[in-house]
């Protein structure tokens, strides 16, 4: 390992601009002649739009245009798409209603846009928006799953009778039935996976520019995947053909899934920039983010697990209702199916699994992938189940888990996934040692003497990252391939540019990817720069989500590097009059092994571009590209243990310790990896203790600001104690697995298991607010 190579805790290259206020986010972009958009949004969860009168608004100062949903329809702008087709168990395709960018006829959730005002200033746009009169005819609303599926419920879309999008299943129903018939014990569990609001700190924004002379559009947008945005905006929304559209995602202030999607506001800004022939800026405020950013989770599940007399698992049966909100967002359909049910085996040998998932429309904000996306829901279910089972079977929860762990790999689960490698005993042992599991009973007794209820909770998660290979996901209904691309440009003076289709919005790619280059070539990272987030610069990319950037995007870089090195070695061998097979790369030099002959990288690069002395037939230049499609998912896994105390007087939870033992395969930059785990844990703990989107019966979002939606603050969280166990991923040359979502996937079950252990009552829903915990203690 070099000082800046793989495994080094290199301080981030991108930090200087952020800590000095020089980051460049979308709202920081200004253009000459820029105008401002403000959306007019439905105050109703369900209503007919009978008319929009903008006469008075058009007379107000600075107003350039008021554009409506009907104009979007008239201009033949496409409806928003859902990119993964799911087939119901009866063989029918999923049933989707249309989602226009602005509603011409019917609004189906509070906050859905019906019109937009474009004005000279933001305040003028807001002032004028109040003068636009929208005539609504209110309709009854279904604000949650229960209300949407009951007989006689209000219908959202005529295409989806009973508000059912699909009724899907996975696994072997007969085998599960057989397993349960042989069971010595059956454990049942009802649980809710609470709806979350992603709340990346930077609200979504767009700056759109239309160049009339060139008939060319430019869109600056808060995106995790600018190429996907360009593809969708051109191929499906018909706003501009790909070669006439440049999408730039500059510095982006967090995503967590919520910035994968191409939302109505960004579409409308782009479309409007041509309509008004002016650059158009839209910057969402936090209230708009609460109402329009895709929410996460929102499952209601019933699970049953069968055990034999030795407490070995025989089978698992799960029935889940998933709330999709009012429209099917881009990846929403895949989240509770192929990203959820496929992980229901957890870390355990479960011979038979059967899962049914019913997708439901409700008059709420659309729901889609949020950090973890399906896998937190699966992990929470399994790990709450294991804890519940241990209590019911009166065995130690760690022992019950160990007894049922998968220990041989590769392991084919009954729910599609083939785990390539792992060592679950190693992670649980590391976590138990770190928290002194054996000493817990004594600590609990001491806390009791101090009037506190102390509990401990485990969670052994597994996830699947780097969704792939493209052929496999295509066969399951995905509308896109999930490969990644990279381009390496070695410049004539030996500096290196790495162009990647991954997008960094906090993950530190500008450092981690440089370390891969530094490791291979032995050059300092200052000599390498990472280019991302601009469709005019980067050839193509699928973007960053699902903890895929290193395992897929990083491997694409390695593949391109292999080509660069192969060519560079040929040039070096030619220059040094040596055999190509004798050339080795060390510290930025190409050496003839066993001799003192060498040539430095800049000289090789220069030779490539002067082309004065290249091997016969070789093209000049030193630039290579690669498209990499993985052969399998990767499977990060680990064990989390949480120890906490509950104040019986108030129901308030305080952390004593939180330990994490993760297996992410090889770590490129452990400092960055730890940061990813910290952030994930905070979101998992946030879900368990603090966060939950609440709608009232009429479909109004009650938790529509930070005043009511509890964001984790510094004093809500402990310092975390992290460690790593390592099994190298055999599926990619780096041996990496992905680390971005693990914390959010594993943490919530550990917290709820600990609280329910502390209070001696297993019935507790997330978020476990002081009020809920106090009621669980006192009835």
């Amino acid at each position, binding site marked *: 390992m070099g000082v800046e190579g793989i495994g080094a805790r290199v*301080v*981030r290259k*991108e*930090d*200087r*601009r*952020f*800590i*000095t*206020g*020089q*980051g*460049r*986010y979308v*709202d*920081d972009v*200004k253009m000459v002649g820029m105008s401002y958009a403000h959306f007019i949004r439905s105050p109703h969860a369900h209503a007919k739009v009978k008319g929009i009168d903008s006469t008075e608004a058009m007379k107000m100062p600075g107003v350039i245009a008021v554009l409506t949903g009907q104009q979007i329809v008239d201009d033949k702008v496409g409806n928003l798409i859902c990119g993964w087709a799911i087939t119901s168990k009866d063989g029918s395709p999923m049933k989707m209603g249309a989602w226009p960018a602005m509603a011409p006829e019917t609004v189906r959730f509070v906050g859905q846009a019906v019109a937009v005002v474009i004005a000279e200033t933001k*305040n003028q746009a807001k002032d004028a928006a109040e003068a636009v009169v929208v005539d609504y005819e209110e309709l009854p609303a279904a604000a949650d799953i229960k209300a949407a599926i009951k007989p006689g419920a209000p219908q959202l879309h005529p295409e989806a009778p009973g508000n059912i999008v699909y009724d899907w299943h996975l696994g072997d129903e007969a085998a599960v039935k057989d397993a349960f018939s042989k069971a010595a014990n059956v454990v049942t569990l009802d649980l809710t996976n609470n709806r979350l609001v992603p*709340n*990346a*700190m*930077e*609200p979504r924004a767009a700056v759109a520019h239309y160049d009339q002379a060139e008939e060319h559009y430019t869109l600056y947008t808060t995106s995790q995947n600018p190429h996907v945005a360009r593809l969708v905006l051109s191929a499906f929304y018909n706003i501009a053909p790909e070669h006439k559209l440049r999408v730039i995602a500059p*510095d*982006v*202030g*967090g995503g*967590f899934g919520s910035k994968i999607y191409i939302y109505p506001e960004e579409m409308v800004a782009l479309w409007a920039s041509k309509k008004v022939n002016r650059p158009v800026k839209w910057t969402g*405020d*936090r*209230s708009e983010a609460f109402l329009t950013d895709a929410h996460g989770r929102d499952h209601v599940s019933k699970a049953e697990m069968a055990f034999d007399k030795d407490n070995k698992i025989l089978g698992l049966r799960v029935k889940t209702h998933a709330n999709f909100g009012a429209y099917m967002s881009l990846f929403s359909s895949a989240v509770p199916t192929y990203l959820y049910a496929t992980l229901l085996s957890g870390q355990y040998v479960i011979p038979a699994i059967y899962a049914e998932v019913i997708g439901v429309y409700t008059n709420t904000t659309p729901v889609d992938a949020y950090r973890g996306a399906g896998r937190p829901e699966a992990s929470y279910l399994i790990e709450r189940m294991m804890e519940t089972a241990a209590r019911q079977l009166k065995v130690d929860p760690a022992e019950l888990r160990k007894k049922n762990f998968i220990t041989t790999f590769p392991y084919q689960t009954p729910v599609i996934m083939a785990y390539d490698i792992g060592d679950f005993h190693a992670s649980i042992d590391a976590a138990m040692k770190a928290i002194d599991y054996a000493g817990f009973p004594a600590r609990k007794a001491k806390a009791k003497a101090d009037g506190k209820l102390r509990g401990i909770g485990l969670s052994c998660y597994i996830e699947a990252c780097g969704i792939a290979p493209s052929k496999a996901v295509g066969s399951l209904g995905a509308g896109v391939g999930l490969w990644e691309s990279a381009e390496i440009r070695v410049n004539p003076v030996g500096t290196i540019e790495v162009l990647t289709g991954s997008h960094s*919005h*906090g*993950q*530190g790619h500008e450092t981690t990817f440089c370390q891969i280059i530094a490791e291979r070539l032995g050059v300092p990272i200052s000599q390498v720069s990472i280019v991302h987030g601009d469709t005019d610069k980067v050839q193509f990319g699928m973007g960053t989500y699902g903890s895929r950037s290193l395992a897929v995007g990083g491997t694409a870089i390695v593949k391109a590097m292999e080509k660069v090195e192969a060519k560079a070695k040929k040039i070096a061998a030619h220059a040094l009059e040596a055999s190509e097979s004798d050339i080795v790369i060390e510290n930025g030099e190409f050496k003839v092994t066993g001799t003192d002959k060498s040539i430095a990288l800049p000289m090789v690069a220069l030779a490539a571009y002067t082309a004065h002395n290249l091997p016969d037939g070789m093209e000049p230049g030193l630039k290579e590209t690669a498209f990499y499609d993985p052969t399998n998912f990767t499977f990060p896994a680990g064990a989390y243990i949480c120890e906490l105390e509950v104040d019986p007087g108030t129901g308030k939870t305080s952390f004593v310790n939180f330990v994490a033992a993760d297996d992410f395969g090889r770590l490129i930059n452990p*400092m*960055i990896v*730890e*940061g990813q785990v*910290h*952030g*994930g*844990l*905070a*979101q998992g703990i946030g879900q368990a203790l603090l966060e939950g989107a609440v709608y009232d019966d009429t479909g109004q979002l009650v938790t529509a*600001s*930070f*005043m009511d939606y509890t*964001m*984790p*603050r*510094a*004093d809500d*969280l402990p*310092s*975390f104690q992290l460690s790593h166990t390592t099994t190298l991923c055999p599926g990619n040359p780096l041996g990496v697995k992905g680390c971005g979502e693990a*914390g959010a996937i594993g943490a919530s079950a550990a917290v709820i298991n600990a609280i329910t252990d502390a209070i001696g009552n297993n019935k507790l829903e997330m978020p476990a607010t002081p009020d809920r915990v106090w009621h669980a203690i006192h009835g």
Partner: protein
Amino acid sequence: MSTVKLTVNGRAVSVDVEDRTLLVHLLRENLNLTGTHVGCDTSQCGACVVHVDGRAVKSCTMLAGQAAGSNVTTIEGLAKGDELHPMQAAFRDNHGLQCGYCTPGMIMSAVDIVHRHSGKLDEETVRHELEGNICRCTGYHNIVKAVLDAAGRMKVAQAAE
């Protein structure tokens, strides 16, 4: 419209703005100091924190007119030329930031915390004092580490002066 005169990062400025203009918008829109961010509309997230007359306040909850005559320091004015403020350096060295959006407000608040506590800080105090700054990326772990680290560096720097 009013003319607001104030000093920003040591420079006297005079800006014509609508009276409803918030200090954060004056900084971002009129002075192009886009390091100060807006992350909420309920005065809670702290992405907009700047120093007004030496106190860390939320520039989204202050009219530009209220800052007239004041001395304002933003994240852009914290470093001495190329030399980072110890708090900025500590955030970088401790990986106290990821997406960078909350970072300017976080750093401005953190400098104020260290000043108020005269360098005597522990983890619990730092966590409590960061109540008005929300970060979605870091889980605060490394931010807390950075503030404690910077408190030590600032004490050393002060002693050296």
